[in-house]
């Protein structure tokens, strides 16, 4: 349970990181909060020759208001996001999700960018970004590019970011007037990775939902946007009938799997239950 030996570098600019990444190729790994990387190194599931600690890159830190969107530096810690007024006012879905991510000591170190780069299928933030159409900013030797969340998470632990690239920021459109968000997950123990979870976002007019987004996590290799359930609900009032239609559509949207924690059948059951809760929460009058 000790990591294999490695060398350590702590660069102070993105350019230096990119230089090291191109020199060392897949022998190098970026270390952000370390809350996912160090466990895998301790278990010797990964054994990089060089660990590039990006915690010295101060300009990757912090949350800023960019007019119609928020920009979150990749190194911003979970705890800062959890307590941010800007996030709470303009991206409340993220604020709702934060307490479910691990435990306080882990949120003190773990970073937004690390969570997104890791792309754990049971992680909350990737699904939230899919629900909100967040964009991931990736910097490489050829410059800066942005990828929308639904195209960023490709397969299990596979993202659109290449070996020689670094995530520098995440951008989230501010919530528009009339929209609401809701979030829930089922886990064995508070803070554990979920057995099934959902991020929901919609325009709410009395009890009628439109432009609905339902993004599931922990039910597939990547976040799953439940397009059939979303269209089943589009423009409808939330009642027993529309909830049932949305739940039934999940059979087409999701292909849950069995694992140690939960069977595929139970996962589907949870997904339907969470859908009901989210639709009810979204439409509940204040």
């Amino acid at each position, binding site marked *: *349970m*000790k*990591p*294999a*030996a*490695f*060398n*350590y570098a*702590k660069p102070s600019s993105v350019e230096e990181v990119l230089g090291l990444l191109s020199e*060392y190729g897949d*022998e190098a790994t970026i*270390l952000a909060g*370390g*809350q996912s990387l*160090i*466990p895998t*190194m*301790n*278990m010797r599931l990964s054994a990089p*020759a060089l*660990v590039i*600690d990006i*915690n010295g890159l101060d300009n990757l830190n912090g949350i800023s208001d960019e007019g119609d969107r928020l920009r979150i530096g990749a190194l911003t810690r979970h*705890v800062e996001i959890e307590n941010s007024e800007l996030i709470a006012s303009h991206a409340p879905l993220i604020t709702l999700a934060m*307490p479910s991510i*691990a*435990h*306080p*000591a*882990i949120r*003190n*170190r773990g970073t937004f960018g690390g969570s997104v780069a890791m792309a754990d299928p049971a992680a909350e933030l990737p699904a939230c970004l899919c629900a909100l159409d967040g964009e991931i900013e990736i910097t490489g030797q050829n410059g800066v590019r942005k990828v929308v969340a639904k195209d960023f998470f490709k397969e299990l632990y596979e993202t659109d970011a290449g070996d020689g690239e670094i995530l520098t920021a995440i951008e989230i459109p501010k919530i528009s007037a009339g929209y609401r968000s809701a979030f829930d997950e089922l886990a064995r*123990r*508070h*803070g554990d990775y979920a057995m099934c979870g959902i991020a929901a976002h919609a325009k709410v007019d009395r009890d009628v939902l439109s432009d609905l987004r339902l993004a599931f996590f922990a039910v597939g290799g990547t976040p799953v946007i439940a397009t059939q359930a979303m269209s089943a609900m589009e423009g409808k009032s939330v009642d027993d009938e529309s909830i049932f239609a949305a739940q039934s559509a999940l059979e087409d949207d999701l292909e849950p799997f069995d694992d140690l924690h939960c069977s595929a059948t139970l996962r589907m059951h949870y997904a339907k239950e969470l859908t009901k809760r989210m639709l009810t929460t979204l439409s509940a009058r204040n």
Partner: protein
Amino acid sequence: MTNEIEQIPVALTVNGEKVSKLIEPRLSLVDFLRNELELTGSHIGCEHGVCGACTVRVNGEIVRGCLMLAVQANGGEVETIEGASDSGKIDDLQKAFHERNALQCGFCTPGMLMTTTELLATNPDPSREEIREYLSGNYCRCTGYEAIVDAIETVAQERKGA
């Protein structure tokens, strides 16, 4: 590229004392504290972030000592259970843990105390539910948690009254 591992000089403050060492990058903070500084109050359970036995404070915030490299604490300030205990500021917590039977084998206790210190600093009047939530990352295999929640609730109330 070479396989030779370069040792890194670090200088940090641990429990108010300055420490300088030459260390291997792979050394975790908790191994550094235990093996290099003989501060064995921070325990090692799982080494992958799940149990919370290794909880220490770095630059004012609690972290997993097993999920931070010692080199990452370079230039920083670390407080362990030894420092917290010697400072006297958790006397009431230690007493309440003792009186309420909130420890049996004691393996989890240093981590519980470090986590509780942060809980009460950020939320001086937590509900039992909030206490459980905050401690969700700290495993105890003996007490069943109820007594731990009792002890923390007692201290929160005492401090409020004081």
